[in-house]
């Protein structure tokens, strides 16, 4: 089997006040997979993703990205390999124009000139925001901001993109545009979401987290059809939504 893009083994993490945020988490994601990370608020999803790019360092257990162990020395390469798209695009888009924002990551990697331009252009194209390149981020719609934030991460050419609540605050049209753009990417994706229909549409596999542990791991349709599992972990499909009845 291939080297997993993400290999988390026996990861545990306590917050300074003693609250256990993660308890012995094991998670493997393989190249090309699109995995949904589901769970109620406070389940530890965000804490887990902040471990995947070294914002938090493991207190116990290990994290490896495409075979590279997460250590202080490996941090620059880990952060290149793991692209995190945060929930509020306003937190992520801080440069004066869309283009300079998408350039931010690759420039940190030391790219310049034509190589930088190619990288930035292809990221902008992939998210269909090339026409916004010279606009200041504060003039964009929320959906556009989100796609630009993803372009900023794509420009790092990561091995995996982690999307934190990518559909929050999006209107249905922006949500569909985002889904279409994400479908065209061949990058491995981890989608953290409460939006179960979106997980169903985008991800072949789902992982359910609750109280800092992984409580279920399997094909998305199978997990979402398990009513008692969903109820136990405060997950709910929208009213009238039936798995397998068409998507």
């Amino acid at each position, binding site marked *: 089997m291939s080297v997993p893009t993400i290999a988390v083994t026996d990861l545990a993490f306590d917050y300074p006040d003693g609250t256990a945020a993660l308890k012995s988490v094991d998670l493997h994601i393989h190249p090309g997979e699109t995995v949904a990370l589901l769970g109620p608020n406070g389940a530890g999803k965000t804490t887990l993703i902040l471990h995947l790019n070294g914002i938090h360092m493991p207190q116990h257990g290990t994290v490896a990205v495409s075979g590279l162990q997460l250590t202080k020395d490996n941090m620059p390469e880990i952060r290149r390999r793991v692209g995190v798209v945060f929930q509020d695009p306003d937190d992520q888009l801080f*440069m004066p124009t869309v283009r300079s924002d998408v350039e931010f990551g690759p420039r*940190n990697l030391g790219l310049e000139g034509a190589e930088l331009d190619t990288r930035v252009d292809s990221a902008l194209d992939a998210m269909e925001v090339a026409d916004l390149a010279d606009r200041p981020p*504060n003039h964009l719609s929320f959906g556009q901001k989100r796609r630009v934030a993803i372009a900023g991460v794509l420009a790092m050419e990561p091995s995996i993109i982690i999307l934190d609540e990518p559909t929050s605050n999006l209107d249905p049209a922006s949500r569909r545009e985002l889904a279409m753009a994400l479908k065209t990417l061949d990058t491995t994706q981890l989608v953290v979401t409460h939006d179960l229909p979106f997980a169903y549409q985008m991800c072949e596999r789902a992982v359910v987290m609750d109280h800092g542990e992984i409580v279920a791991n399997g094909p998305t349709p199978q997990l979402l059809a398990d009513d008692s599992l969903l109820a136990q972990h405060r997950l709910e499909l929208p009213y009238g939504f039936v798995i397998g009845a068409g998507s």
Partner: protein
Amino acid sequence: MAGGHVHALYRHGDTLIHGLPPQVKVAAAFLFIFAVVATPKEAWWAFVIYASTLLSLATAARLGRRFVATRMLIEVPFVLAALLFPFVGGGATVSVLGLELSRSGLWDMWNVLAKATLGLLTSVVLAGTTDIPSMLRGFEKLRVPRVLTAIMGFMIRYLDVVLGEFRRMRVAMHSRGHNPRSLAGIGPYARSAGLIFIRSYERGERVYLAMASRGYTGHMPSVNGDDAGISQWSAGLAVPAFAWLVAAMAWWSL
């Protein structure tokens, strides 16, 4: 919530002045203001020349009278302060419409009003013809430290976000019947200002996390702008050079 006020200072156009590289315009504006400030207040004709120069530039940039006039309104509090000078200045007095006004106070008022107005007019022309990203590139080209331009960039970028939060909070307060008619009702505003401070601080942390996730290690990559050619520099610097000539004549004429 597009918050147009950041761009409210800029008027899109394709005039010669719009087309000049930002670093040339920023340098020219600074040098022009220095010339204005260095001119002795007694040489009133020099200020007339400066004002005509700036108004011609504003016309050439097609900024429009209304655009310029409304953006000059920010000066009003300073004008009101300057109007007090003739009443509080000491020394010899002159009688104007039955009021005894200080002669040196009148000169000081004129000095402050003329120089502040011209300085502001210069900024209006600069900001009206240079959008914010170019302005930041201009500062960088002029070797302003990257830390300072980055701070300016962050400030401009998040002004809208923070004002938007404040606006939403105010709407929420009004929606629950808060309708201050006196100073006593200002309490909730003060508390929301405190809350905005905390939220901005937290946002700062999240922005930093997002930056660190894209490989930020404490050094901002610089934004590349185009270099300005000799002809552009000479075109841009001709205006402050003229102003310096006028200032020199003003000193000589005393």
